[in-house]
């Protein structure tokens, strides 16, 4: 699943506040699809997380985003649809 779909799964499968152990036990095998590289499981992502408890789905989502691998984090201003001229960019002729 893509990262934004995790909220729906968190809400259905977990009761907040929850612990990192409960998240990994319940959803650890779920695959997160990386836009630019290798997918990771929720357990693999949270392996680096030191937070023990999560008060809300927001907090858990933020932690996931903090610890996902390079396949989820792109280069600044890179757009896979190619260069787009925007209204706050200067254009030279």
């Amino acid at each position, binding site marked *: 699943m*893509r990262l934004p779909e995790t*909220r*729906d799964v968190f809400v259905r499968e977990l009761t907040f506040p929850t612990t990192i152990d409960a998240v990994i036990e319940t959803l650890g095998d779920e695959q997160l699809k990386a836009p630019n590289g290798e997918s990771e499981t929720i357990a693999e992502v949270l392996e680096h997380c030191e937070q023990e408890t999560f008060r809300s789905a*927001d907090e858990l*989502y933020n932690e996931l*985003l903090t610890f996902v691998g390079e396949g989820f984090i792109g280069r*600044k*201003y890179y757009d896979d649809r190619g260069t787009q001229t925007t209204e706050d960019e200067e254009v030279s002729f």
Partner: protein
Amino acid sequence: MAVALLAGVPGVGLSSMAEQTRRDLDDDYLLINFGDAMLEQAATQGLAASRSELASLSRVETRRLQRRAGEYVADKAESNKVLLTTHLAVRTDSGFLPGLPDAVFHDVDPDLFVLVEASPDTILSRRATADRDYDDVSRHAIEFEQDLNRTAAFEYAVEADAPVQLVENEDDVDVAATALTDVLRTGL
């Protein structure tokens, strides 16, 4: 399938209500937070890694992220009844921006708008005791933002030929969530 757009000012309790409502609905439904989708896109493009950083992006960057997030929602709505939590008026460092610029609006193509509201005093009280940090704003500023939401909701509703529903979250979140569930079961 269909999209119900759920909106309310920060602190009104929209997330809690939407999550509780989602648990009461079946597998046809999918809860998506528009900010989650924007944040995924922002991270992918190296623009932001947290919600607070989203508010500091330029208008052009914000619009691009909104567009990508809108396409994602449209894709998901092909096979799900999407409950989309979002802000109809987005507070940024440049001022309030429309939550659904034209291209995003047409991609998302909502079938129902639900405004979740409470009195400004209730919202201020919830913000004061919340875990997350909120900007220090006045009662008047909250009224203003709720007015912006109403105006935006009705303008979008006219364009989409879709109804607007009001759900009040003044006291008990369970009661409000039940009301929201009823609205969604009837309206989607």
